[in-house]
């Protein structure tokens, strides 16, 4: 009878397999221990090692309601799985188990899922040195050095104490050259009961977040820090002239007070405050390389001057409007300005063409009035002997027409005038003309413009 019951139990077990099984994950593959015991090896007290497992549901859909680790030196990291959770058939729950011995000697823990012990973990704690900060507090994880300028140093002071009762050989190292130990000895002996101070330096040579580990024997301490640019030197604007008038092209350079330790980009901006606040924009006031009022420049480590593309200066135009041109250079945290006053001036004639046709006289000229205040114009025509033709200077009020023109222009104070004068008679008798324009700064006159025949 007893044998029959046992047989039935064994047969029944074949139809009711265990729901959950534990597998060690090695190289992405599930590996099962034949005796469901997994060893974490020997670790110094204070150090830790972790292994990855799959808690696989080998049966039908199931609910995981309880999961325990029975040992203080073993824990789930970063945290235990959330419970309860449904584990569909054939799937697994990822587990990361860490062994961190709190004292020397063997340590064990059992993994129990839904009340069933699935595996045993074991490991051994090794008597080791203790590491703390200078003030005795635990070493933070990670040891964060914060933001540090390239080439500068941030440091932590740590103390290594040997409480093992015997002399210990200490191996110290960091995993990148951005972090170093001082003194730089990588191996030394520490007598029983002794302690030694060590400085951990972060000296970033590149920008951005940096990470490494400090390793003391088998103890691993994560290190972090951020490399940042050192500040730029103070930029100063220099110009190729001490003053500018209208309709000029000038050059600006950005001089640095000392060789830059930083690499980056700055910009120079133009702001314009016209003398007449109601004046239309003057789009000719611009940097020529961009066709705009902003130009960027680059500064590399070691530079003493900003680089505008392949050159060291940027060409700008002063436009044709009286007012203040304000240049602002921005580099890192520095801002510096320089203001030039473009003084109001009389009308400036740029080009002219006086032609005689069979029907009359054709006069064209281009000019600018940086005050945009021209009121009167006079035309004086001369005969072949150079004498003024009657009635002499002919005055015309141009203020209304020019005001209307400037109101619709965004080219500053520039204007062109094309006038045709029909002549009743022989135009060849008119040899030349002088044009005079008067604005708020005074009167300006063209040279005597000879009429030519096309």
């Amino acid at each position, binding site marked *: 009878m007893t044998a029959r019951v046992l047989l039935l139990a064994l047969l029944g077990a074949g139809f009711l397999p265990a729901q959950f099984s534990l597998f060690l994950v090695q190289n992405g593959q599930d590996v099962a221990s034949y005796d469901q015991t997994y060893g974490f090896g020997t670790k110094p007290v204070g150090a830790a090692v972790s292994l990855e497992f799959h808690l696989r549901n080998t049966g039908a859909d199931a609910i995981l309601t309880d999961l325990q680790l029975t040992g203080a030196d073993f824990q789930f990291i970063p945290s235990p799985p959330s419970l309860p959770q449904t584990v569909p058939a054939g799937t697994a729950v990822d587990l990361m188990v860490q062994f961190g011995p709190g004292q020397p000697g063997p340590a064990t823990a059992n993994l129990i899922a839904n009340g069933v012990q699935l595996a045993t973990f074991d490991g051994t704690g090794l008597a080791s040195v203790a590491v703390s900060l200078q003030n005795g507090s635990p070493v933070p994880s990670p040891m964060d050095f914060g933001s540090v300028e390239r080439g500068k140093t941030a440091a932590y002071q740590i103390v290594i104490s040997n409480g093992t009762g015997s002399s210990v050989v200490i191996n110290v190292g960091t995993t990148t050259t951005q972090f170093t130990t001082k003194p730089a000895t990588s191996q030394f002996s520490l007598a029983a009961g002794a302690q030694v101070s060590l400085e951990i330096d972060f000296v970033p040579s590149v920008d951005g977040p940096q990470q490494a580990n400090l390793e003391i024997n088998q103890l691993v301490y994560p290190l972090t820090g951020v490399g940042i640019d050192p500040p730029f030197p103070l930029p100063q604007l220099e110009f190729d002239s001490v003053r500018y008038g*209208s309709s000029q092209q000038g050059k600006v350079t950005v001089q640095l007070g000392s060789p830059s330790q930083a690499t980056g980009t700055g910009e120079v901006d133009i702001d314009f405050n016209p003398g007449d606040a109601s004046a239309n924009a003057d*789009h000719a006031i611009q940097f020529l390389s961009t066709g705009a009022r902003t130009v960027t420049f680059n500064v590399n480590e070691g530079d003493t001057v900003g680089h505008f593309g392949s050159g060291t200066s940027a*060409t700008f135009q002063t436009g*044709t409007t009286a007012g203040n041109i304000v240049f602002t250079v921005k580099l890192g945290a520095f801002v510096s300005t320089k203001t030039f006053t473009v003084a109001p001036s009389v009308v400036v004639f740029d080009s002219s063409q006086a032609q005689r046709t069979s029907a*009359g006289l054709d006069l*064209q000229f281009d000019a600018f009035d940086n005050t945009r205040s021209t009121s009167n114009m006079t035309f004086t025509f001369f005969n072949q002997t150079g004498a003024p033709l009657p*009635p002499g200077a002919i005055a015309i009020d141009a203020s209304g027409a020019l005001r209307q023109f400037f109101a619709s222009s965004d080219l500053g104070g520039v204007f062109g005038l*094309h006038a045709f004068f029909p002549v009743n008679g022989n135009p060849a008798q008119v040899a030349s003309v002088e044009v005079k324009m008067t604005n708020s700064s005074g009167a300006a006159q063209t040279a005597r413009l000879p009429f030519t025949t096309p």
Partner: protein
Amino acid sequence: MKRAAIFFLLCLTAAWAASNWNAPLVGVTRGARNQLHPVYGVAGSLVLRGALKGDALNWAFAASGGLVQTDGELSVLDARANVTERRATSASEVILSPDYAFFPKTGELWPAGVSTDGSIAIEPAVIAGRVIALGPDQRGIVLAACRGNQLWLLTFSVKKGALLHESMPGGAVGEQACDNPGALLVLKDRLLLAAGREIVIQTAGGQERHVPIYGTRIHRAGEDTVQIELPGLPSQLMRISAEGERLYEMPAAEARP
């Protein structure tokens, strides 16, 4: 005399009422993207505005207007740089002045804007060389031609295509122009040649000046302006006057702030 003066004054007043205030057009220049842009302003205060359609292969512009060669087309521009007419043209070489186009293959001299019936035939035998530039002349038009390796200036009538005059300008321009095709400009009172690392200027009065600038190509951009294209650098605008030449840097094409 008194009566004539009164008439003149009356006419003047009437003309003033019809006068035209405008934004001065300095000329047209080619931007970094090979498009032509009208340039407004005065010397030292230049603003580039919207581009004309198409890639400009060649162009010439002056106060009266100009001509632009794009791929497969010649466009006629008026004095305000507006396209007024288009003429299909093959990809063959065209020599341009603001007012004329010369087709070396056919010997056709085309006055801008007229129908092709109005073209003037220039006999190749009369040219006896390779035309490399056109220029203005009070009596007609100048064809700058290389005969062998020597530059000749041939003045033709624009009515009958007859040769009126020919001369050798000599000097550095005369000697080097045929080695630098596309680098010669014939202006009213001077010749300009982009020759290596300098612009050579030879005036009608026989003076020769050298402007040290590495311009690979020069173009008639306006009545008194020449665009000098520099490899890898912003173009320069050369302002030409009776007093001499002055250089200005060109704004970038994306000029509108």
